[in-house]
């Protein structure tokens, strides 16, 4: 009977991730991660911005230029495109939907905009586009594991 109870306990532990429904809390956690990313960018801190991306060779970054794989490759492309705080400009996010797919997977859709002073015209210039981020909870923390920006 003891063995039977032990198995019941182990099974309950193993399915615990599915029984819980904490979408509000998880959404708050994801929003906090995005707020941190935004703050880092606007402080010219590319490293802080990149901390929200999964530091792994499997990270995917998809744009009109194709697919980049791996955290290091994504960092390098950001460093090349935005070498200074001025080049980074002021980033803004607008969220359309944050939806949890499984207890450890979520998808975020939204709009990004970057406002900066044009080097040529010296006038304020705003560029914008749309994105879908796939977040995954890894070791109790949410990370972007795929970013598709157009």
């Amino acid at each position, binding site marked *: 009977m003891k*063995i*039977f109870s032990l*198995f*019941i306990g*182990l*099974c309950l532990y*193993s*399915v615990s*991730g*599915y029984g819980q429904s904490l979408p509000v809390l998880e959404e708050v956690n994801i929003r906090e991660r995005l707020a941190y990313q935004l703050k880092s960018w606007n402080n010219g801190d590319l490293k802080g911005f990149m901390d929200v991306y999964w530091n792994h060779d499997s990270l*995917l970054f*998809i*744009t*009109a*230029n*194709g*697919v980049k794989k791996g955290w290091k490759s994504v960092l390098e492309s950001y460093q090349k495109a935005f070498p200074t705080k001025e080049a980074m400009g002021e980033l803004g996010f607008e969220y*359309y*939907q944050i*939806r949890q*797919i*499984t*207890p*450890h*997977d979520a*998808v975020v*859709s*939204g*709009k990004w905009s970057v406002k900066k002073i044009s080097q040529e015209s010296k006038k304020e210039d705003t560029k914008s*586009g*749309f*994105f*879908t981020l*796939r977040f*995954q*909870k*890894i*070791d*109790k923390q949410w990370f972007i594991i*795929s970013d*598709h*920006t*157009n």
Partner: protein
Amino acid sequence: MKFQYLALIIMFFSLEKVNGQTVLSPKVEKEIRQEIIQNMDEELKILNSGGSPEAILPFFWQSDSLTFCVPQGVLVGFNDLKSFQTSMASERKSPPGKYSYHLIRLEPMSESSAFAVGQINVTASDPSKSFSYHFSCIFEKKGDPKLPKKDRWKSWLITSETISIDRKSK
């Protein structure tokens, strides 16, 4: 009683966790991949037989939570996608060309969800009109769960899709 123990042991090991995530058995992963690939093949068949953009709507989740992200914006809800596809269909004079795709990643996320990334090439009879785009999709099992094995691919629906037109082909 022995059978009960065995069932519990199987249940425990089938839900093994790594970093808090469920690990699917290779058999389940293989089945999911086959079903998703069949789903995508069927969608392409419709497009290649001259089907209009509206003809592929049954492949999408009929929900207000569906998202479809294109360079023009993010459509939220099936009705917005339907209007978008209808408008695309009315603007289209003829099918743009032959569609083919290659998968870059197909990753089952759970027994009822999967993530796919790939590239679609549209080859037109006039090569200057050929183009390509990348897509990333979340597929979820939202359709009839009681379908026979051969039709199980139909239970997978796209719940979120993002498209970016390749710069080289613009």
